[in-house]
């Protein structure tokens, strides 16, 4: 029985493969679902071969055919590129050479559906890093959202409220990139130590994350006058949560390290703290010992009682 069942399955599968002229998801995934490990292209780029069918189908893109994005692959996969790539996608893919080294067409294909968002990204400090400066550091779709094969909505997404700070921190917490781009040191630490960051850690549902103040797809450099945290723009940005935010208030929200006055004031307080603790602890301990001593060795009682006696 088992043999005949699996034989039937094989026949059906072959029928499916042969009949599927569009090379839709099922035929690609027949192999890629079962594959594991990586392959290296001629230019030395590492490609992950596995695409889990279950994950893909559960993702927001699960309804799409592979070739909707991987437009250069057609009937003879991997062999006949440039088959039917849309002009706009092709044009974009040529700009992304520095970033998308494996399949720039697929990397650009997001723009087919997410056109406006992609435009914002390309104009953002992230996108310009790639298309204008020709670097690969600027975050594009996959860097924040993860592989399009596994994108889900809500919990589990790397850009969900609970994960987005960690996602930004993958680059913005990096010493290497901080140095290369001259960011204020320890951006992530200063957020985590702020009231915003602490409440975020504790699961506050309204406290701002990175994107609340800096924006997401259209994120700008802090030195860009159109950034929501540039100069007086902060009045509006902070004012979204803090009614009546004024110039004296908005300076309080910063990634700047602690200045010298608060730093030394804190040092002074620590000295006060330690000396108070030292006094209290030594007083309590010595008093406790003297009470024990009085009970054990001086049964007559304590000092002033003797005086009265």
């Amino acid at each position, binding site marked *: 029985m088992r043999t005949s069942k699996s034989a039937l399955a094989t026949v059906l599968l072959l029928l499916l493969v042969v009949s599927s002229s569009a090379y839709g998801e099922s035929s690609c995934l027949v192999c890629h679902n079962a594959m594991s490990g990586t392959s290296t292209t001629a230019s030395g780029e590492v490609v992950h071969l596995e695409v889990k069918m279950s994950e893909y189908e559960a993702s927001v893109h699960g309804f799409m055919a592979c070739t909707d994005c991987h437009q250069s692959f057609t009937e003879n996969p991997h062999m006949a590129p440039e088959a039917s790539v849309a002009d706009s996608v092709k044009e974009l893919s040529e700009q992304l050479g520095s970033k998308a080294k494996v399949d720039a067409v697929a990397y650009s294909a997001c723009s087919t559906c997410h056109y406006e968002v992609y435009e914002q990204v390309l104009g953002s400090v992230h996108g310009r890093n790639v298309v204008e400066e020709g670097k690969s550091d600027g975050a594009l779709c996959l860097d924040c959202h993860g592989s399009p094969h596994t994108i889900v909505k809500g919990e589990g997404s790397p850009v969900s409220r609970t994960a987005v700070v960690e996602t930004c921190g993958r680059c913005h917490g990096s010493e290497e990139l901080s140095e290369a781009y001259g960011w204020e040191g320890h951006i992530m630490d200063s957020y985590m130590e702020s009231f915003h960051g602490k409440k975020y*850690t*504790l699961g506050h549902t309204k406290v701002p994350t990175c994107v609340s103040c800096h924006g997401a797809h259209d994120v700008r450099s802090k030195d860009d006058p159109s950034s929501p945290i540039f100069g007086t723009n902060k009045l509006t940005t902070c004012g979204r949560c803090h009614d009546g*935010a004024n110039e004296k208030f908005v300076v309080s929200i910063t990634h700047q390290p602690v*200045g010298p006055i608060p730093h030394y004031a804190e040092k002074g*307080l620590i000295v006060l703290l330690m000396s*108070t603790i030292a006094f209290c602890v030594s*007083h309590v301990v010595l008093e406790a010992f003297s009470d024990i001593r009085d009970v054990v060795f001086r049964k007559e009682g304590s000092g002033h009682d003797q005086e009265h006696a």
Partner: protein
Amino acid sequence: MTKSTHEEIPQEVERFDIIFRIQHVIMFVTFLLLAFTGWGLKFAHVDVSNWWIRVWGGAEVAGVIHRVAGVTMILDFIFHVIYLAILFTQGKIGFRKETTIIPLPKDVLDVMQNFAYFLGLSKNKPKFGKFSYAQKFDYWAVFWGMFIIGLSGLALAFPMAATLFIPQGITGWIWQLFALLHSDEALLAIVFILFWHFYNEHLKPEVFPMSWLWVTGMMSVEEMKHKHPLEYEVRFGKGKE
């Protein structure tokens, strides 16, 4: 309140009236609420804080508890000062070195005398008035806390109102200072209460598990004679034993 030596000496005397006792209850209830919720925020990065803040209803609710308790404590404090002023104008309290809460040079001498006694260098304990130096320390610590933690807390809770009082030149660092002052001084207050107040009023062998004075307001004259001999002398005369 008589100072006559001819009158009958009562079994016990009222040390704190009901108004003071209520002030004290409000003070310690708000203190505990502030300490419990603030601790979780100060140490948010520690894993257990997440659970601890959920115990208090989550970050939003804990924040509301903290603010309400903070404002209540400040009002309690202000009321205390007003109440003292009322008692003073009515002549019910006055300054007398044996009964005052105000620190005096004698308190420093008492500290040295007590340490000498602890170390066996002196046979005699210092003789205290109505308030020993330990109690004065406890009392004035609240004023210090109110000044540092209360003011910085108000500024952090009501920042837009605070900007009315903050001069332009110091906005670059004053907010960081407020945050540091508030959290460091709060830690000091908690540690101080744990070591000083809890030992002196709860763990000390003669009071364990606690002195009931905070509920009844009454202290036995026997205890007064033992712990506050100078107050006893003022009230009931030196010769009476």
